[in-house]
């Protein structure tokens, strides 16, 4: 069984934000919610690196553990999803998430949070696959169509890889060997408790 993961090769990311745009468009993500974002470290200085970050679909997901209403579930592929029908917008998953993936629409005054929204690995939600209600709540379900997440598909430099963890780790390893350097698989230690040996 495939274990889905993301890997952003920071040495290739050019901060074009194609991944961000693709995700926003494909799922009609509401204004103010950013499922995926690109962050640049040491911007303008030598050794600047950009990383595209969204939900990493962690092993033993901390968001799922702290949810007071247990609205999360992990699919057989290792994709961490949640039910917006059960979510109460308490905000705890954001405190627990090491990557800042959960987002909340602003529905009320002050800090009122609406239902949490986050990257679904293009795998929809608990509603029936490819149904209208699934699209309205969670965006498109590419995995049910046998496709991979659109952010990785649209990446202009193929720095963002998405798919079975072993396959993308292998791709990354080959790249690193060929070019001779790597700044590592960002987030893998925190999310999956493993590093890609290079």
């Amino acid at each position, binding site marked *: 069984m495939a274990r889905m993961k993301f890997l952003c090769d*920071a*040495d290739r990311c050019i*901060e074009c*934000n194609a991944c961000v745009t693709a995700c926003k468009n494909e799922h009609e993500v509401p204004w*103010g919610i*950013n499922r995926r*974002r*690109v*962050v*640049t*470290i*040491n*911007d303008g200085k*030598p*050794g*600047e*690196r*950009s*990383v595209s*970050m969204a939900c990493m679909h962690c092993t033993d997901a*901390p968001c799922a*553990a*702290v*949810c*007071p*209403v*247990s*609205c999360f579930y992990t699919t057989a592929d290792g994709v961490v999803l949640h039910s917006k*029908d*059960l*979510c*109460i*917008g*308490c*905000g*705890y998953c*954001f*405190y*627990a*998430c*090491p*990557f*800042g993936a959960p987002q909340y629409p602003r529905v009320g005054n*002050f*800090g009122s*949070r609406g239902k949490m929204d986050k990257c679904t690995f293009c795998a929809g939600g608990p509603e029936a696959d490819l149904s209208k209600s699934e699209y309205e709540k969670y965006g498109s379900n590419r995995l049910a169509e046998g496709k991979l997440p659109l952010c990785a598909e649209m990446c202009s430099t193929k720095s963002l890889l998405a798919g079975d963890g072993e396959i993308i780790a292998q791709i990354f390893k080959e790249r690193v060997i060929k070019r*001779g*350097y*790597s*700044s*590592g698989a*960002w*987030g893998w*230690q*925190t999310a999956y408790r493993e590093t890609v040996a290079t």
Partner: protein
Amino acid sequence: MIARYQPLGAMLAVWALCFLVALCPPAQAQQPSSVNPTAQSVKEQDLLKELHKVQGRGSIPDTKSYVIQQPAGRDWRQFHEVTLHWIGGIAILGMLVLLVVFYLFRGMVRIESGRDGRAIVRFNAFERFVHWMTAVCFITLAITGLNITFGKELLLPYIGPEAFTEWSQWAKYAHNYASFPFTLGVVLIFLMWIVWNFPTPADVRWLREGGGILGHEHPPARRFNAGQKMIYWVVVLVGGTMAVSGYILMFPFYETDISQMQTAQMVHAVAGVIFVAIMLAHIYIGTIGMEGAFEAMGNGRVDVNWAREHHSLWLEKQIAKGRVQEPPASEGSPAPAE
């Protein structure tokens, strides 16, 4: 005819100049033969070790999205799912067990000389209003707050996810709205009772004798005894802590970053469960723990003998102010002074 070829001459000159310039080897542009971009690049592990988070610069207005890794979230999860459950369980269940055992062993503290029959005003309407407003809000806040931590274990398996979400959604709003009258109540309690809650010498003796609760002694006390003063300061200080940490949680990221939010939640949770445990004892003594205590807050008046046994110094003052009626003359007992 020559005039048409003049621009061509100019162009040729320019090209010749460029050719000459290109011939000069630009020393800086020459790359060293072995490139190692990683030598200068940021390493994830270095950043994590130094700052305990990885943060950069993004291009969207949401500045908290610029933190792309905060492993402290894992530690907070461990606190919330494990540590807090232990602290809360021990504090609250421990207190409940203690109170049950105490009641079985000591029973209700009675008015030993029996009721006098005369009543004396102890708390006026405003004081009772503030107390009950704060108390009702406290109960609401306690139940809805504990639901966040313990609800999914204690309630969700019995009522199912949809009903539990419906209840929890309502509970979240109730918790947030009830916080305002509760905070107002704490501030009013602080102001209206502060003069009677400073430590006095009578408190030392009262504490030494354990308030007389285990034996049948009645150490003198003023309007509030040392136990009540402790409750007062717990309400003011812990209640104030709950308010401050709670409002930080209710206005997330207005002035705080993620680790400050996690800290606010930890303070709110630990102080909360301890507050609940202490208030259980307060509720116990004010209801089944002591005969004649509830009516002080219920209708504001207490029996004179109750006052004599538990707040003798206060009663003396009230008598001196003429607030106690004369006893019925036919009883043959001496005058009520002292």
